[in-house]
């Protein structure tokens, strides 16, 4: 049998067997609509509310501040549009970074059509947002700052707690309340998600990134944050997100988040040692391979590399022939032809950015997996470089 090595945990993860087990009864047996009166439905209601408490425990917030959504994308949209449209009277300025996920960046573009102004902060060559840039960007008309907790492509971890302090201070100085959102989708299972430690008013999570089902998101909204719900309808989720609850999905997401939080330490260490083995091995065996992102302030499971003279997709296809799943830039939209906006923002030249490959580890990966990748990568790169017209020119 062909070996199967999954190294794309930043794109998505399998549902954890225990999360799936928790979900199963809610499809065909305990299928009541949580809004109904009778016992079958109240069981579903209870399952949703217990899930809310479980999530709130991990975020260190009251259960009432948790909204269940249909994914990270919806949570990002709801956070930005929700605050922007609700706080419109106070100002029309939003601050974000150039390396946010499309779910944040495209939402900003949407809001620009509605008269909002957005500052896209640059990052340094390691992908770090500069805290002083955030401070400088905030004006009297700023209502919202949205900076991600960790980047999905290069794994760089942003200084959210510091940013939170600066937002609070500058907010006082200019005399207007500025709210802080963080897209923590890539942080789940790796970083502390306590909203008070982070100092954020809104926080986004996506279930399928932490071994929960696809199509479930979490949005934390601190009490007192202006928020205009974007999905209108029934009185679900305390009037903040209409629509019949995805009961099985919510139960699965909460179970998975609990497991991920429990295993955070051990999992992080294991991933990090595999990641370091992979990076070291590649740099030893393959010339002109460059690690992107921050050397140390990065997610424990992220190894993002750029290979000169070759293009990412053709590397991925060859890896796939050998049973290895990896990604080039964001998995979110392979439909895009532009090189990753994240690598561009970090100042990586376009031709190098085209040769990016991202390996992201998970708890099921082993040293053998890494050694297998190390055994095939040099051949793949060599083969592609042999076809490439850039190789000679470059090496001469």
């Amino acid at each position, binding site marked *: 049998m062909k070996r199967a090595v999954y190294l794309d945990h930043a794109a998505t993860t399998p549902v954890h067997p225990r999360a799936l087990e928790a979900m199963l009864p809610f499809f065909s047996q305990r299928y009541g609509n949580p809004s109904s009166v009778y016992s079958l439905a109240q069981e579903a209601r209870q399952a949703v509310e217990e899930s809310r408490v479980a999530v709130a425990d991990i975020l260190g917030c009251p259960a009432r501040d948790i909204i269940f959504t249909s994914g990270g994308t919806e949570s990002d949209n709801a956070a930005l549009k929700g605050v922007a449209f609700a706080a419109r009277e106070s100002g029309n300025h939003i601050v974000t970074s150039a390396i946010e996920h499309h779910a944040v960046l495209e939402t900003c573009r949407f809001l620009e059509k509605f008269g909002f102004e957005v500052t896209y902060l640059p990052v340094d060559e390691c992908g770090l947002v500069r805290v002083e840039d955030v401070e400088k960007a905030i004006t009297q008309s700023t209502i919202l700052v949205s900076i991600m907790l960790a980047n999905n492509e290069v794994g760089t971890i942003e200084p959210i707690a510091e940013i939170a302090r600066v937002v609070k201070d500058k907010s006082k100085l200019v005399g207007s309340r500025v709210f802080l959102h963080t897209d923590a989708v890539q942080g789940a299972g790796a970083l502390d998600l306590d909203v008070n430690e982070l100092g954020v008013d809104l926080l986004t999570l996506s279930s399928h990134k932490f071994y929960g089902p696809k199509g479930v998101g979490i949005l934390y909204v601190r009490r007192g944050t202006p928020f205009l719900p974007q999905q209108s309808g029934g009185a679900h989720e305390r009037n903040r997100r209409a629509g019949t609850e995805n009961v099985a999905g919510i139960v699965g997401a909460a179970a998975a988040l609990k497991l991920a939080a429990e295993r955070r330490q051990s999992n992080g260490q294991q991933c990090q040692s595999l990641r370091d083995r992979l990076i070291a091995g590649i740099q030893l065996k393959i010339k002109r391979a460059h690690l992107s992102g921050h050397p140390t302030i990065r997610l424990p499971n992220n190894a993002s590399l750029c290979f000169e003279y*070759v*293009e*990412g997709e053709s590397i991925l296809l060859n890896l796939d*022939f050998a049973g290895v799943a990896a990604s080039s830039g964001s998995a979110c939209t392979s439909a895009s*032809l532009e090189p990753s906006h994240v690598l561009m923002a970090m100042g990586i030249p*376009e*031709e190098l950015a085209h040769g990016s490959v991202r390996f992201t580890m998970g708890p099921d990966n082993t040293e053998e997996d890494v050694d297998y990748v190390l055994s095939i990568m040099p051949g793949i790169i060599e083969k592609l470089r*042999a*076809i*490439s017209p850039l190789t000679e020119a470059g090496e001469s």
Partner: protein
Amino acid sequence: MYSDLVMEHFSNPRNVGAMPDADGVGSAGNPVCGDVMKLFIRVRDGRIEDARFQTFGCGAAIATSSMVTEMVKGKTLDEALDISNKAVAEALGGLPPTKMHCSNLAAEALHRAIEDYRSRAPA
């Protein structure tokens, strides 16, 4: 995503490599855009006797490069000039819509190689 034939050409590309003594060479694309193709042709008696390529690019770019080198062999220059992007894509059993631009490169490089040949050895 890709047809079997695209995958076949991608994994076993035909006619790979530079041709130092080529009669015509054409390039298309740009490393900044993530796709560069270089096509070499050898011409005998008005026909393309051999063709080779070098490509930096995605799966579709490599497969269309391979396919176009196969398609031109034995064709007269005018016949070769008639090969369109669409024809290359069709010969491969189709390409995903977002990848159609890759077959543009193959025809473009081919046309430039023929131009190059003609500019060297005027008819």
